[in-house]
């Protein structure tokens, strides 16, 4: 999904883009780092709320919000919407063609990922905590821990890491690799601190 968004961002004048479920709760975005998770969450819920409040009969197909310094363009998708932040000098004809091509692909991806939360901020947070768990694990088992950690990740599948429950599963497998009872207890205690 992010690859698709990054391709859309290549249209001259597009600053960033996001795809959201219709309720604005689950989003995938390709915005510059300056726009943090709070920006993304807020813009998705604002657009979602606006669409839902507008009417029960006539769902808009396209929204163009025009500003002094840019535009926010929202294209409805089946099951959600695509929102783009653009400069005012964007070539709308070129953008329309790009969106027409991208729309069916995004709708398929949106349907496939409907149950998967891929908010990059959540992923970043999970990754940071996973790294801390790795350090805690290596502290107990020594350098071989790096290899063991990667093997366990492979066993779980990296795509499985979506939320805290997945990290708990990881801790559960890691602790079984620690032979010392004291080490096992220390690792569990440190993991609780990392996950809390």
């Amino acid at each position, binding site marked *: 999904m992010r690859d698709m968004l990054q391709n859309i961002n290549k249209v001259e004048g597009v600053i960033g883009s996001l795809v959201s479920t219709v309720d604005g709760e689950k989003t995938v975005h390709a915005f510059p780092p300056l726009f943090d998770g709070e920006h993304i969450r807020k813009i998705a819920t*604002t*657009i979602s709320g*606006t669409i839902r409040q507008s009417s029960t009969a006539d769902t808009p197909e396209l*929204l*163009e*919000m*025009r*500003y002094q310094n840019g535009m*926010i363009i929202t294209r409805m998708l089946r099951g959600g919407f695509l929102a783009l932040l653009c400069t005012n000098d964007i070539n709308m004809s070129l953008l*329309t063609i790009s969106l027409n091509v991208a729309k069916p692909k995004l709708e398929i991806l949106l349907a496939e990922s409907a149950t998967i939360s891929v908010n990059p901020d959540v992923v970043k947070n999970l990754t940071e905590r996973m790294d801390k768990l790795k350090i805690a694990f290596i502290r107990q088992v020594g350098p071989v821990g790096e290899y063991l950690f990667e093997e366990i990740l492979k066993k779980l599948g990296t795509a499985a890491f979506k939320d805290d429950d997945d990290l708990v599963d990881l801790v559960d497998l890691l602790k079984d690799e620690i032979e010392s009872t004291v080490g096992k207890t220390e690792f569990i205690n440190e993991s609780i601190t990392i996950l809390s």
Partner: protein
Amino acid sequence: MAEQNSHQPESMGNASPPVLRQLLDRLLKVPGVIQAIVSDKNGVPLDDQSDIGRSLATRGKVFIDGAILAGKTMGVGETKSVAVHDHNGRMLVYALDNQYLHIFVTKDIRLALVEAAISKILATGR
């Protein structure tokens, strides 16, 4: 999708009721424009108390309020207008000084041409 997005209307916020009516009558003469009403910022029409007028103003207010909030979030400056495309036609909502201008446009005409004509009327009064 509208091709034109840079033009902006002048304020008609201080227009007296007869002047406002004249402007709206001129807007209604633009090919493709079906309805044009002005509301206050609560979405209450100033000159058209019909059900259709109230409905257009209420819907327009939702979009322009959403646009204002979205604009503040993304730091894109003052909100100028919103264009809404649905299967019935297009709605334009302009943020004026203390009012909103809501215009409904048929689907079978290039929106950019309509917007250019609207902007000219708002800027010159003619």
